[in-house]
């Protein structure tokens, strides 16, 4: 008789255990714990293994080299750098140069991509055909090839310094680079910057006020046009009143090359042109597909309401097209950032060229340098996609 309660206890226990296994929450907790353990163990194993092997090969490891003087020159820097500076400084120079390329290329390729994308939708047969062949030719050839072609085929073939092409007002183009007048700050410039900031804030406030008024009363106000007027006219007047607090340092031919102003090396020009042209093709297709995704009925409805043409585009077509456009656009922006590392082929000192190539080779610290480079690209990509995702959330279909 005593055996029966025992039996029932066992059955109960078994029941508990099997219920635990089939309980989704407990099961997922177990799987997560196992995954975490595996990842941590893998990382530990990788690090330990690396250290052991580095030692076995008599290779120096660690980040101590960052304080050591690098000792080589860099052809183009945004932040001050001289030959005696440390490797850490080189890393910073590389990051700045890569970010510069990414920002400029993203801006140019977006503007150009939108134009080409709209041109592809043009009812004018010639414009549409030109846009189409531009897209098909450029996006179907390798980017690396295009970068090299622009470098050797165009910028390296420009006239030499003594026969430079002098474009007006201190803009000079030759095969050593593109020279621009450099701004020199003078007294009163900070005040002018303040006025500029105030007028920008004012324009934004005006825009918000106009949007609210539109919602409240249905009356529209040309906020964008007025705002642009404020942002341009007020600082311009202030600039003249303050007696031009900014002067220009003109590039001049001195000795072998032009001196003064801002110098942009040919490798930068080639890289920007190639990257922007290549990416703009993909962006053009994204824009075109986004606009075409808006159903014809929407346009007809806007027409039936007698909305003006620019309102139809701004308030009906674009908000809906954006939903289709933004996600692939994020990928393109990420691609530009990563593709900028092809700069190494023509020697533009971006992060990969100056850090993962030159510094790695001069210092011999492969592991820390590769890790730092990967960390940087990962961080940039994650932040670009974070920002774009926030924007994407805003333009997404709001289900109420």
């Amino acid at each position: 008789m005593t055996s029966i309660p025992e039996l029932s206890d066992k059955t109960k226990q078994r029941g508990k255990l099997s219920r635990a296994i089939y309980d989704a929450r407990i099961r997922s907790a177990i799987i997560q714990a196992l995954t975490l353990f595996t990842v941590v163990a893998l990382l530990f194993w990788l690090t330990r293994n690396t250290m052991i092997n580095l030692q076995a090969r008599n290779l120096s490891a660690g980040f101590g080299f960052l304080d050591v003087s690098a000792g080589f020159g860099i052809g183009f820097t945004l932040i001050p750098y001289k030959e005696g500076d440390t490797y850490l400084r080189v890393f910073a120079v590389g990051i700045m140069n890569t970010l510069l390329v990414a920002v400029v290329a993203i801006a140019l390729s977006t503007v150009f991509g939108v134009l080409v994308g709209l041109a592809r939708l043009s009812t004018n047969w010639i414009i549409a055909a030109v846009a189409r062949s531009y897209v098909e030719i450029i996006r179907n050839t390798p980017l690396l090839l295009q970068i090299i072609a622009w470098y050797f085929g165009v910028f390296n073939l420009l006239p030499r310094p003594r026969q430079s092409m002098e474009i007006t007002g201190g803009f000079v183009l030759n095969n050593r680079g593109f020279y621009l007048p450099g701004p020199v700050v003078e007294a009163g410039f900070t005040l002018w910057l303040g006025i500029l900031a105030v007028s920008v804030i004012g324009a934004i406030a005006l825009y918000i006020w106009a949007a609210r008024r539109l919602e409240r009363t249905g009356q529209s106000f040309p906020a964008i046009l007025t705002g642009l007027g404020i942002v341009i006219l007020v600082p311009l007047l202030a600039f003249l009143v303050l007696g031009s607090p900014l002067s220009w340092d003109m590039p001049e031919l001195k000795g072998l090359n032009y001196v003064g102003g801002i110098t942009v090396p040919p490798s930068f020009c080639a890289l920007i042109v190639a990257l922007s042209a290549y990416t703009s093709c993909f962006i053009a297709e994204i824009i075109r597909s986004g606009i075409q995704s808006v159903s014809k009925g929407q346009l007809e409805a806007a027409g039936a309401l007698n909305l003006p043409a620019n309102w139809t585009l701004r308030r009906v077509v674009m908000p809906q097209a954006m939903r289709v456009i933004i996600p692939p656009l994020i990928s393109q922006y990420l691609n530009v950032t990563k593709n900028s590392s092809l700069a190494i082929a023509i020697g533009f000192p971006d992060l990969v060229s100056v850090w993962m190539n030159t510094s790695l080779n001069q210092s011999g610290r492969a592991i820390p340098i590769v890790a730092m480079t990967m960390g940087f690209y990962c961080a940039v990509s994650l932040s670009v996609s974070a920002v774009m995702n926030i924007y994407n959330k805003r333009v997404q279909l709001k289900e109420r």
Partner: protein
Amino acid sequence: MKRILLTGAALAALNATPVFAQETLATVEERGILNCQVGLPTPGFYALAEDGTWSGMDVDLCRGVSAAIFGDPDKVEYQSVTSAVRFTALANAESDMLSRTTTWTAVRDTQLGLDFTTVNFYDGQGFLVPADSGITSALELDGGVICVLTGTTTELNLADYFRANEMSFTPVTNENVNVLVETYLGGGCDAYTNDKSGLAARRSAFPSPDEHILLPETVSKEPLGPVVRQGDDAWANLVRWVIFGMINAEELGVSSENVDEMATSTDPNIARLLGSEGNIGEGLGVKPTFMIDVIKMVGNYGELYEKHIGANTPIGIPREGTLNALWTEGGIIYAPPFR
């Protein structure tokens, strides 16, 4: 491509089984092939013919080591690697030795897991400029745009030289010497800087070599020589003594033409070199008469020099009166005795 290589190198460093550095000779013998790393093809030092065969001063060192091990100079696989990844490739055992005009420096010798064996060419850095530029001295290059190979000692010396002379310059860098030379020839830089031997070698392949002049200044010392992985002293010894053997052979008048007669020489110095006396080969792990094979199949140091880069070649670097003459003739090419 380079990024793939680098990532590969980084991954290889994570590999679980460490390479046992002491066993290079055994590994090479078992493989039956010597993996010898050279650079991107450069006339005179490591030139690549149209039929895919390599030749040159540094290539012949690989051939010499192959002859010493196998009795056959052609059991070599040549790996052409850019200078930026050369040390990683060697440290990861992708190659057994590196013979490619590499400068011996303290940092490289002590921190990269490498061992320099000896010097086979004493070089110095110079500048090449177009003759019509009117530049006659490196001191006139202030404010200039200078083409330089990245990841080289040249890149560092360039910065040092301009700093020391309080001049400014803008470097145009690339890891690919061909891209750099194209840039220079297109006028993208005022001067191209490299080791003088390298400049002479490159210039010999220009469409019109006469239109470019080497500036007189030598701004650095560049002792070039073959490199092996650190930690295998026996292997370093073998590479080192093959070169010492070639130098001793020239000093003793043993050449590829007379080595057969010399093999029976009664001169004890020659007898030890060629293995009829003593047991030097044994200590190196090769047969006693290994230097006969090396000299017969490849040549002595002087023969290599004249054949590949001497005054009668397109490279045309005269040897007489330079550091690269034998010590008995006023130079500093000097090998410890074979005894």
